[in-house]
């Protein structure tokens, strides 16, 4: 209608409709979809990408990271700092002694996850990382960053099971490539074959 003032009244009708439906509709259909944090929390989707974490199999000693330093080199804002652990003889043991990520620099790009050849660093869902001051607690060390494979399966089930299958297939291929020991006796051979694929 071309009555002067009609546009204004139509606008008021729209807001009234929204006002009334905000009481009745469900969040999905145009009602209020506020989540009253922290009493209610939404579960993050699997692919949600936040700060990185290191995976260990079983105990924190069996951390997958070998301190190769590729993620440290490839990280665009250079927020990772790694120092290789030296064993008693002074030779590099393939484990990190120091693995620091500065959360003040990390931009959650996910490049460390993409370039790691040992499936040891992945992106976590933990967004409630807080610190009372900027200089404290924003650099997280190896102990806080290491989380178990079970945790990884819980937050990212599809990716975790794909990685587990890949690692299992690679291990089997390695076992199959190793030649079996020469047969000593009938019992011994039976034992070897029985022990074959697990």
């Amino acid at each position, binding site marked *: 209608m071309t009555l002067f003032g009609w*546009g204004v009244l139509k606008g008021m009708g729209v807001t009234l409709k929204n006002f009334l439906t905000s009481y009745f509709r469900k969040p999905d259909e145009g009602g209020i979809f506020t989540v009253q944090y922290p009493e209610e929390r939404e579960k993050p989707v699997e*692919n949600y990408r936040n700060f990185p974490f290191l995976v260990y199999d079983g105990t924190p000693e069996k951390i997958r990271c070998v301190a190769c330093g590729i993620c440290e080199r*490839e990280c665009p804002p250079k927020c990772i700092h790694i120092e290789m652990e030296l064993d008693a003889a002074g030779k590099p043991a393939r484990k990190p002694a120091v693995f620091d990520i500065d959360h003040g620099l990390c931009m*959650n*790009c996910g490049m460390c996850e993409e370039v790691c050849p040992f499936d040891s660093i992945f992106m976590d869902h933990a967004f409630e990382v807080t610190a009372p001051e900027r200089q404290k607690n924003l650099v997280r060390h190896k102990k806080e960053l290491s989380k178990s494979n079970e945790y990884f399966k819980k937050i990212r089930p599809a990716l975790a099971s794909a990685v587990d299958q890949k690692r299992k297939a690679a291990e089997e291929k390695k076992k199959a490539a190793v030649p079996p020991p020469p047969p000593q006796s009938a019992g011994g051979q039976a034992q070897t074959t029985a022990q074959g694929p697990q």
Partner: protein
Amino acid sequence: MLEINFGPQHPSTHGVFRMTVQLEGEKICGLKPVFGYLHRNHEQIAENLPYAAIMPYTDRLDYVNALANNFGYALTVEKLAGLEVPERAEYIRVIMAELSRVVNHVTVIGFMLNDLGAFFTPLLYAFRERERILDLFEAVTGSRLMNNYFCFGGVKRDLTNADLAAIRKIVSRFPAFLEEFEALLTKNEILCMRCQNIGVLSGKAATNAGITGPVLRASGVNYDIRKVDGYGVYGRFDFKVPLGQKGDVYDRFYVRVLEIRESLKILDQALTQIPQGEIMNKRSPSILKIPRNFKPPVGEAYGRVESPKGELGFYVVSDGTPQPWRYHVRAPSLINLTVLEEMCLGQKIADAIIILGSIDIVLGETDR
């Protein structure tokens, strides 16, 4: 003659942006934009990083729609290195780019109405729709805003059937929102009074200044890079380009609303036509795994996309090493700002803010 500063701290300048305005009474007789408060050395940083590592930084240029920036950069490097993109990946790219265009236009319209004084109501209605699209981005790419989703030769993750169903649901619900929005505001007398015949830009002046995007199309010039270049698979979709006739603030606002409708049409067609197949070129996984081995041949390339703000161009010069020799971003927000003074002369002080809002600048892009 009064000289006033619309300082870097102002609720309506869309970021840290300053305008020095010379006033005579209520009328503007001179205006100078001052920017650079958000300069972050993006181009310099890129000269020291391998090509794949620059992708997360391009997200942060136009932070409202990160996927368009990713698209432009990926296109440029593919031109430089001669990489082919499989078909399914092309369709996914178009879907993501159009969703991102919808997000941007909805945000811009909401903020422009906020500057006009409609106390957040249209903004929050627009954001209600935007939330659904951002939830989809989170499920597919991993992050709501800084997506980092494209790679050279394809995209990083596939769209599952659940994601496609979610996109179909979003697309089917959008027209209802647009109807409500138009009923709320398009014929509103107060809005029309404030926006019509304000900040008029003629088509000739716009073409001379190098303006692109909805600002140019609202002045009546038919130039849309999706039609002109036909990059990706845009040539296969049937969509129209809305043009304005007057070139004022109201036209720029309404052209964006019409562009949302056209994007919804493209999304519909892309969702029905999307084929099964690979999402990455054969070389892409190795580029992602070991970025330092990717050395494109010596040469230069300029790739451009129709970002929701205009023509977003990337100019990359390679010298055979893993890092680019020179990297430059043609930011549409910066180029579109050059006509701000011309549009504002003779208007009242209250209109300067609205005209700035209708050009749609993002400081991340302007200052890089």
